[in-house]
């Protein structure tokens, strides 16, 4: 199951092990893991999402990446709900025969997840709560694909 959207915490090492077990015989595996950063006084993060659309949107991204880079495997796990500083938020894993393809596909998936998967982050810090604003850089990053 290449798309997992869940509230529960996950273990990145276990995700890597499980992914590699399914991607056997493949030359290159790239993973990305995003973690809640504790800078600027942030104490927690709440992630809202759009059940149903989230899974569909991510599955479509994976399908696109798989075709374009001829991937032999791809996996996305993304949490929602409340996360504490230091907790893994999400992870992307790609497998291909060649390293350039695995790297590019992972970056493509990250760029799309940032701006085209229906997640919204709210940060809780020393000065209360606030919705994270989308970054121009993240939108611009889509132009390279």
């Amino acid at each position, binding site marked *: 199951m290449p798309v997992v959207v869940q509230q529960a915490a996950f273990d990145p090492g276990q995700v890597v092990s499980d992914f590699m077990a399914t991607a056997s015989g493949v030359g290159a595996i790239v993973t990305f893991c995003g973690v809640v950063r504790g800078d600027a006084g942030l104490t927690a993060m709440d992630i809202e999402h759009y059940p149903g659309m989230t899974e569909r949107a991510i599955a479509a991204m994976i399908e696109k990446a798989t075709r374009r880079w001829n991937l032999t495997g791809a996996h996305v796990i993304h949490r929602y709900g409340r996360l504490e500083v230091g907790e893994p938020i999400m992870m992307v894993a790609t497998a291909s025969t060649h390293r350039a393809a695995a790297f590019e596909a992972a970056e493509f998936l990250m760029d799309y997840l940032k*701006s085209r998967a*229906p997640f919204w982050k709210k940060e809780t810090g020393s000065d209360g709560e606030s919705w994270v604003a989308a970054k121009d850089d993240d*939108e611009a990053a889509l132009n390279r694909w």
Partner: protein
Amino acid sequence: MITVLYFAWVRERIGLPREDVETSAVTVADLVAELSAREDRYAVAFSDIAALRVAVDQSLTTFDAPLAGVREVAFFPPMTGG
């Protein structure tokens, strides 16, 4: 009847996550105009359309998208996943 969903600060400003709406709106923009005319909280949430994104039946689209046969419309700010 269309199910309308609100996420993030759109949800907070309107004060509810979803509602069923009887409408004869032809496009998403028509629906936004109808909702905005209802009450101030809608008018405020929809005051800057450029700051919003819309999905129709769980696919991202634009505000001129037609609503014929549509079951679900969702309004939300730009996404911040990853």
